[in-house]
């Protein structure tokens, strides 16, 4: 009846599945699934049996003899005024990572931060935040944090450390900080310069995750960046810009983009997303039309599109040379890079048609030539000022590659007497070819103000620990005028000072950084002549976390035509090189970014949204490239760039462009108890002019690249459904699939009654980008432990929510489908029937609950669960190192060894809302209970609520025509509905995937 593309046989999870047609069995054999009787060796003698029985009895007795430290419960009599035991307090704060500022709400219990969420008052976030923001909780409580200062091997008390810092502030002093979006901090450095005339501050970032237009200083006279309003865009073209992931602010961009993708009914319109990219990213996986194109080819495509638009009568901006542009032809680009001309034609037509409602974005790896083309394209379309805005970068003046190289040369030539590294780790994250470490060693006084003893701190003569941002004051301003205040929510755990305070003390300036920020805000931020007393203004902003001030005014963004022409001429030179090997691309890691937070176990174990790789990085090659080398995932390939070579593990990445080798940054740290030795340092390969040659040195092994995609397999049953918007609009009957037997009402079990609340969830696959923020939010909320790489290799990761990623189509040009899979809270739960001790049972409000202290660990439930969402504690995984125990959410039981666990629909949140409602004598309101994953989801793909309340959001979504249950034919009656994925392709899919259109 329906025309959705069914899961089987079109969808596949890994190349092994695609080739063999068989679902992975490896994990079933030596993974989480227990051994079957047939797996045992034959001929077990009575004596052998007795020996085994005796030994197991002895082991069991020995193993159980452990004493649980039950601690001591002490009355909390001497408590701060605002703390009520058992009740969470929330504080608004903010932090920045690279060029991005995140406004957050910090949940604290008894004075300790335990969970982070986006600030609901901030218009860009609306309560959402990035996956790494969630992980900052673990970063705060990292046992590896430095607790005391040291000079060489000698430990220094804080006062002496400040004295030593004072002595270092002599002569020519270079202060290297990360990207800085704080005007108050900028003013602080000005003040410091009054005391230390030789001080110069430079902003050092390893990877640019901003939306800055590269080379914009030449194009406009000052540095500019894009700010997006993608909710207004009908057509989005991404040129290697992973705008739903690591390009600029993935969280707020995903929020905007998803607004144009809402499909409430058949008449709804969807925006169309074109992506041309070198490797499959989160954005590429949601594309309606995707093209495989290396980063070096993006500029050519962009200029050819501009030429095409001109051919359709779209005028060029004044001053831009049309003659040069005419040399770029779309058909020539299509031939050169083997692109589908039909898709390019459709793209050109869509862009011309959408005009100002089209947005073109280019990633940082495409270079300034492509960025100039994108400014040209957006100016031609008229979208500047509508879907995207050009704004000056403000105080964020990060060094570009040339600036960083010049700094290294200055260090090597002895221009600097002191170099202070403040929150940066350039010894690790600077391209090795630039020789940072050698140049740095030539500087006389080397100081590090850092959180942990990282690679750079090891090369320093003086190391002083600083406070984590959750223990420190700060402020930020983005060019759109939005200001955020950062306030400490806990006293410094190790008695540290924040770096700004250290510098203030060392220079002998009066007051601390808080006083400085307050003065700055009193004089610069609070509107002049305001009748509101400053203290009240300050408290209001601290309470809200945000304050909107006028946006930064651009001095003018008139495009310099000569600069564009110069870029076009450059392109000829660039493309004349020709391809002999593979171009190496170092990209930010979806979980670890550039490696600054690599010591956070949650992030190491977080599966990559597309490749599902954990604990480490790999060399990503296209299937064709890998085949040429006879390499498979897990093989070792020797990659040579000039005279240097590296042996790297391979991951064959479906959908990647040929002649491209992609590596994610963040691996290869040499310090830190968690990240030391995990993966390889991608920065060693960065910024080398040569193209790479590769050869196979070792055949594939299973344990080299850890991917979770084949764990917890649903055995090839029907899971993800997909419609094109055209098909969806055409057909009259309901799309969701109901099993014929269920339709007739055959059911083994009697219908259950849920008199009060009946909790349910709806997951919209069209909105889900697979960004994985939900996984981290769930991990933080529910005290989910990290198990480590050895156990991930056995399929024993503990995440309660996993994102199943399916491919459809060929390995070269697949379509990606994402499906979050968590406990379905079935009404007729197959896990409940098989539990011998009734440890899992149905609650009155429709939840499938676990009684941990009743569970004896038979794992029958996990075996019988068709959704494979139950997780077993094979060991005591919880890290007991101090102060990690403070990170635990006290509302959620910490599970011990031998216990089964799974998603609870955040039952602690349900119970707390129930208690609140009861105390106020009312029913629980719709939207009052929000699960951690729902709160984290930037695209609002998750809706949770009471199904008995027919007006609730979840009840309405439940009735959506795209709604279906996974494996409905089993009759388990899950409390989760999925809304089928929707795409808006311009050109019909290639026949390979189209073959499956008529299934069902």
């Amino acid at each position, binding site marked *: 009846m329906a025309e959705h593309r069914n899961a089987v046989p079109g969808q596949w999870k890994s190349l092994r599945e695609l080739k063999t047609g068989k679902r992975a069995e490896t994990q079933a054999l030596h993974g989480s699934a227990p051994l079957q009787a047939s797996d045992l060796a034959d001929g077990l003698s009575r004596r052998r049996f007795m020996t085994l*029985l*005796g030994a197991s*009895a002895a082991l*069991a*007795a020995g193993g*159980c003899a452990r004493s*649980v*430290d*039950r*601690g*001591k*419960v*002490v009355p*909390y*009599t*001497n*408590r*701060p005024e*605002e*703390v*009520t035991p058992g*009740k969470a*307090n*929330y*504080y608004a704060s903010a932090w920045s990572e690279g060029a991005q500022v995140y406004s957050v*709400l910090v949940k*604290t219990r*008894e*004075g*300790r931060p335990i969970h982070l969420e986006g600030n609901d008052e901030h218009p860009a976030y609306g309560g959402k935040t990035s996956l790494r923001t969630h992980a900052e909780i673990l970063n705060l409580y990292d046992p590896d944090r430095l607790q005391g200062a040291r000079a060489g091997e000698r430990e220094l008390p804080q006062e002496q450390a400040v004295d030593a810092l004072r002595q270092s502030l002599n002569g020519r002093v270079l202060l290297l900080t990360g990207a800085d979006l704080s005007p108050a901090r900028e003013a602080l450095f000005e003040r410091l310069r009054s005391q230390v005339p030789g001080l110069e501050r430079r902003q050092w970032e390893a990877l640019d995750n901003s939306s800055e237009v590269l080379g914009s200083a030449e194009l406009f006279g000052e540095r500019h960046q894009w700010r997006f309003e993608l909710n207004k865009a009908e057509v989005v073209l991404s040129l290697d810009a992973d705008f739903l992931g690591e390009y600029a602010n993935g969280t707020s961009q995903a929020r905007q983009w998803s607004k144009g993708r809402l499909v409430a009914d058949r008449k709804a319109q969807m925006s169309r997303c074109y992506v041309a990219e070198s490797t499959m990213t989160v954005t590429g996986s949601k594309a309606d039309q995707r093209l495989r194109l290396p980063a070096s080819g993006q500029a050519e495509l962009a200029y050819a599109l501009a030429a095409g638009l001109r051919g359709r009568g779209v005028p060029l901006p004044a001053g831009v040379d049309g003659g040069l542009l005419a040399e770029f032809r779309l058909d020539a680009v299509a031939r050169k890079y083997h692109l589908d001309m039909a898709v390019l034609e459709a793209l050109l037509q869509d862009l011309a048609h959408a005009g100002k409602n089209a947005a073109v974005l280019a990633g940082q790896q495409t270079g300034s030539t492509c960025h100039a083309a994108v400014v040209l394209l957006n100016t031609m379309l008229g979208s500047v000022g509508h879907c995207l805005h050009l704004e000056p970068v403000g105080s964020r003046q990060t060094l570009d590659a040339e600036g960083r190289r010049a700094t290294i040369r200055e260090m090597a030539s002895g221009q600097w007497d002191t170099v202070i590294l403040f929150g940066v780790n350039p010894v690790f994250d600077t391209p090795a070819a630039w020789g940072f470490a050698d140049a740095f060693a030539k500087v006389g006084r080397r100081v590090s103000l850092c959180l942990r003893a990282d690679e750079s701190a090891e090369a320093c003569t003086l190391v002083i620990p600083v406070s984590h941002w959750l*223990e420190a004051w700060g402020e930020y301003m983005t060019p759109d005028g939005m200001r955020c205040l950062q*306030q*400490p*929510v*806990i*006293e*410094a*755990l190790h*008695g540290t000072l924040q770096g700004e305070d250290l510098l203030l003390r060392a220079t002998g300036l009066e007051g601390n950084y*808080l006083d400085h920020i307050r003065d700055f805000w009193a004089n610069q931020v609070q509107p002049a002549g305001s009748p509101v007393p400053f203290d009240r203004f300050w*408290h209001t902003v*601290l*309470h809200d*976390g945000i304050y909107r001030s006028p946006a930064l005014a651009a001095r003018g963004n008139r495009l310099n035509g000569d600069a564009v022409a110069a870029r076009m001429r450059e392109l000829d030179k660039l493309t004349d090189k020709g391809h002999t090997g593979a171009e190496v691309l170092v990209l930010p890691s979806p979980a670890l970014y550039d490696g600054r937070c690599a010591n956070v176990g949650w992030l190491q174990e977080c599966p990559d949204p597309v490749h599902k790789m954990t604990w480490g990085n790999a060399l990503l090659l296209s299937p064709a490239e890998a085949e040429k080398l006879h390499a498979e995932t897990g093989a070792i390939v020797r990659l040579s760039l000039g005279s240097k070579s590296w042996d790297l593990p391979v991951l064959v990445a479906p959908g990647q462009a040929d002649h491209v080798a992609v590596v994610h940054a963040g691996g290869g740290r040499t310090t830190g108890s968690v990240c030391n030795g995990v993966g390889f340092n991608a920065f060693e390969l960065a910024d080398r002019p040569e193209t790479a040659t590769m050869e196979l040195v070792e055949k594939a092994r299973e344990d080299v690249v850890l991917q979770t995609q084949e764990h917890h397999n649903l055995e090839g049953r029907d899971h993800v459904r997909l419609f094109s918007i055209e098909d969806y609009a055409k057909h009259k009957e309901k799309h969701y699939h109901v099993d014929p037997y269920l339709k007739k009402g055959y059911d083994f079990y009697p219908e259950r009654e849920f008199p009060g609340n009946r909790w349910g969830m709806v997951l919209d696959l069209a909105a889900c980008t697979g960004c994985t923020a939900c996984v981290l939010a769930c991990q933080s909320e529910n*005290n989910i432990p990290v198990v480590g790489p050895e156990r991930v290799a056995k399929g024993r990761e503990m995440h309660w929510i996993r994102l199943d990623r399916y491919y459809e189509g060929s390995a070269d040009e697949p379509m990606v489908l994402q499906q979050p899979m968590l406990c379905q809270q079935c009404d007729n739960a197959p896990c409940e029937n098989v539990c011998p*001790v009734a440890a899992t049972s149905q609650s009155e409000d429709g939840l499938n609950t676990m009684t*941990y*202290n*009743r*569970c*004896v660990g038979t794992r029958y439930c996990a075996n019988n669960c068709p959704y494979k969402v139950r997780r077993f504690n094979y060991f005591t995984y919880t890290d007991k190192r101090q102060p990690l*125990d*403070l990170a*635990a959410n*006290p*509302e959620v*039981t*910490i599970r*011990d060894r*031998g216990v089964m666990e799974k998603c609870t629909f955040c039952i602690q949140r349900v119970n707390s809302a129930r208690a609140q409602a009861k105390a106020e004598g009312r029913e629980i309101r719709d939207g009052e209970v929000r699960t951690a994953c729902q709160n984290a989801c930037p695209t609002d793909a998750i809706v949770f609520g009471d199904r008995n309340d027919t007006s609730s959001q979840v009840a309405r979504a439940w009735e959506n025509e795209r709604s279906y249950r996974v494996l409905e034919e089993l009759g388990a009656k899950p409390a989760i509905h999925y809304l089928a994925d929707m795409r808006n392709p311009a050109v019909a899919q290639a026949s390979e995937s189209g073959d499956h259109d008529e299934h069902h």
Partner: protein
Amino acid sequence: MKKNSRRLALKWLGTALAGLFVGLPLRSAAHSPAQREAASAPRKQPSRKVRPAKGSVMRHG
């Protein structure tokens, strides 16, 4: 004699196993969620360190 010692060994083994089967659930039942929570919470009166910082302003509690 040989037969008897084997029987004795089996008896002991049986008793030990039965003890384990009965004892283990009881033992794990003794560790109620509340007790485990207490174990996960700060062990003693929260120290001076684990406190809200001075000057911060609460959103809501």
